[in-house]
């Protein structure tokens, strides 16, 4: 273990690990420094400069997300000058995009909005001139409104560094700069695999989930953490629901294992089946072979099954009954299923499709 370094942040002596950035050292102490382009687990690029701090003897303000601490460094994060600089940066971002929250799906979960609130900005100082891009709406999963893009590059880094799908990049320069797949293609025509990481990391309303549009504002949604129902990775997901419908699915970032907040297309966009009209809603019984199903009450169905299974067992013995358990049901249910066949029926004829 390397030796700790001591620095002073806002007059407070702070002990930190060598190699830590000013931002990390400060946040470890619970000191608030605003950020926008910074995203944990991706490289720090210092693009937005919202995280500027004063460092004694430095020639200019320092982007704290990129600047490593050095022994004895004296840092100030909340001076009026710093706050003014941050306000200026945020106001410039605001004026160069279309940031009216009234018509933005991200209202309530927008980091730019949070900063405007936190820095108590009342009105924009600069005239608003947004680039007037057309909307990109050619797929059913992800919507892009580049007029709300602040070019923080989080989506690009998420695509390349977190998911390593290597689809998104910056194109053009200066005021024409934009982010997207190669050749300015729409997502649907690109190599995009719709993991949705770009939308999950977007701090504003530039990249949003299309099916969540008008399905509920962030503060109206209930959040339930659960485990994904697809492959064996067991990704931790947050289901956002409203009125008994899933509005969107996000990777759970609170706890690292196993997916560290990332998802794939199935976990993210594959949950429609739950509220599909094809869902079974009542027990169905076919009283005689060849007849149609009839809806039945639970008690009726239980009685029917019990009676028939008992008859088979009586006539042919317990080993004439078999059960297929499910690799998609919970542990508790698998446990009960085999307990049922072994304990209640008396056979070991229980298997599931693990082999398949």
């Amino acid at each position: 273990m390397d030796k700790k370094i001591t620095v002073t942040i806002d007059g407070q002596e702070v002990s930190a690990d060598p190699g830590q950035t000013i931002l990390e050292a400060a946040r470890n102490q619970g000191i608030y420094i605003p950020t926008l382009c910074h995203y944990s687990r991706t490289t720090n690029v210092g693009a937005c400069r919202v995280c500027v701090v004063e460092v004694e003897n430095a020639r200019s303000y320092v982007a704290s997300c990129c600047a490593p601490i050095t022994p004895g460094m004296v840092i100030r994060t909340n001076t009026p000058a710093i706050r003014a600089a941050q306000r200026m940066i945020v106001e410039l971002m605001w004026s160069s995009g279309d940031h009216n929250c009234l018509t933005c799906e991200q209202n309530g979960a927008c980091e730019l909005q949070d900063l405007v609130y936190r820095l108590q900005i009342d009105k924009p100082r600069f005239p608003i001139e947004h680039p007037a891009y057309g909307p990109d709406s050619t797929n059913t999963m992800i919507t892009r409104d580049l007029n709300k893009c602040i070019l923080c590059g989080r989506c690009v880094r998420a695509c390349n560094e977190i998911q390593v799908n290597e689809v998104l990049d910056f194109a053009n320069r200066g005021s024409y700069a934009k982010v997207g797949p190669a050749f300015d293609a729409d997502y649907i025509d690109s190599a995009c695999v719709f993991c949705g990481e770009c939308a999950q990391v977007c701090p504003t309303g530039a990249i949003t989930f299309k099916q969540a549009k008008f399905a509920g504002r962030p503060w109206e949604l209930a959040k339930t953490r659960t485990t994904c129902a697809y492959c064996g990775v067991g990704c931790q997901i947050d289901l956002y629901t409203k009125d008994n419908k899933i509005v969107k699915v996000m990777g759970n970032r609170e706890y690292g294992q196993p997916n560290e907040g990332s998802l794939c297309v199935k976990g993210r966009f594959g949950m429609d089946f739950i509220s599909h009209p094809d869902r079974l809603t009542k027990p169905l019984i076919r009283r005689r072979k060849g007849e149609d199903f009839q809806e039945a009450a639970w008690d009726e169905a239980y009685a029917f099954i019990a009676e028939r299974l008992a008859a088979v067992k009586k006539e042919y013995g317990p080993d004439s009954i078999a059960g297929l358990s499910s690799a998609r049901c919970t542990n508790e249910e698998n446990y009960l299923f085999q307990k049922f066949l072994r304990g209640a029926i008396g056979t070991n004829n229980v298997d599931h499709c693990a082999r398949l």
Partner: protein
Amino acid sequence: MTVAGLAATFGSGAMTNSIDELEYTDLILATGTNTTENHPVIGMKVKRAVRQHGTKLIVIDPREIDLVKYADIWLRQKPGTDVAVFNGLMNVIIAEGLYDKEYVAGRTEGFEALKEVVAKYTPEAVEKISGVPAEDLKKAARLYAGAARASIIYAMGITQHTTGTDNVKSTANLAMLCGNVGIEGGGVNPLRGQNNVQGACDMGALPNVYPAYQPVANDDVRKKFEAAWKAALSAKPGLTLMEIMAAAGSGKVKALYVMGENPLLSDPDLQHVKKELQKLELMIVQDIFLTETAQMADVVLPACAFAEKEGTFTNTERRVQRVRKALEPPGEAKADWEIICGISGKMGYPMAYASAREICEEVRTVTPSYAGITYERLEKEGLQWPCPTVSHAGTKFLHKDKFSRGLGLFTALEHIPPNELPDQEYPFLLSTGRVLYHYHTGTMTTRARGPVERCPESLVEIHPEDAERLGIADGQKVKVTSRRGKVEAKAHITEKSAPGSIFMNFHFNEAPVNFLTNPALDPIGKIPEYKVCAVKLEAA
């Protein structure tokens, strides 16, 4: 399958190491796993390891999957020649003295027999069997042996063969040979295909074992469970899935209770399966949709989807994690456990549980590896079994210092060709699997807008050379026929599969590929050979 192969070798069948370790190890050998499509989030970690952490990657796969792009070496073997390839790798490693002699001496047995057999599999001999160039094989062997920590990941490409158990054992042989089992960042890591395959096995949904792999044939074990469950239990191991189907056909099994499975789309040789199921006197299906199987049932019971109930899943790295209720179920649907309790009660065997949590509490008492796992502890992070006590932190990787069975067992294995290989009549080799956008028999994903938009139908992957020869254009309907049946689907011309091989997925009931597949089973794991059968291909 994995259970059969790895349990024989190490003493327990599961991913030995953790997903997280993949990103920080020195080398990953990926074989028979199209990770980026089937386990995208693990795929992401493999790619990050390569791109960001300098990890070496060896891919052994007949198809040019996405990971090939990231690989240092790609060995493209002919389907069904895995044992030969692994023997070849070991041949080089032993011949060049690159193996971990101390580890082999101290922690394993059966090395001499292994050495004897692999001696025959020189790179040149292997090239003949598998088509992998001898030089590439040597390079791969040296790269693998040179890594301080190497992790093998595999999936159905290894297991779904008549030699599936041998294939699994071969991966274990290689890993032990280089001392890679029982260390962080190493191991043999089967990536389980479904969300709770691991848990279903752990919970004893297997014909020969109770929860935590305790054999039904063992008298002490059985007595313990008889006491716990207050019931007389059968000492005779039951039938496996494919055997159950056969027994249904022969009239030995009269009643079948299916919970959340759709064998009528997932099992090989579907026409045959259908005939077998029709012979049943009683079939009960419990599911969330009226699946192909449910349509044949006598009773269909509506179940809750995962977001409508409480419970736990165990993921591929043995991590037990919570499932939570976010939605109310539609209509009168009930959680599967409630339904089981309902039926059991009517049969005079009351199972009065008020919640999944209560069931879990019972599981803990009879399942030593789960004894320390409580819902309270699962509130935040999951726990990896074995977790024998409530103060135990869970187990990140298995076989540290000692294998479950004591010494690791090398198994000397010979190459056995697949059960059915292309011939003049059926000149193409068909391999099956999943695609990124869908899951299993498609009951879930074909009802989701996004995935359907990206992948609306089944496609037959055909190499351009073959397509040209047969005069098939991209998007054209083709007919694929095997000795068991035929299906039609659109052609997708791609170099992903080698010439002479085609690839199809089994997600769509419009093109049920399992009409074609061969129900030949691995003799131990009883797994069908989904990955190789012989077909013919023509424009429809």
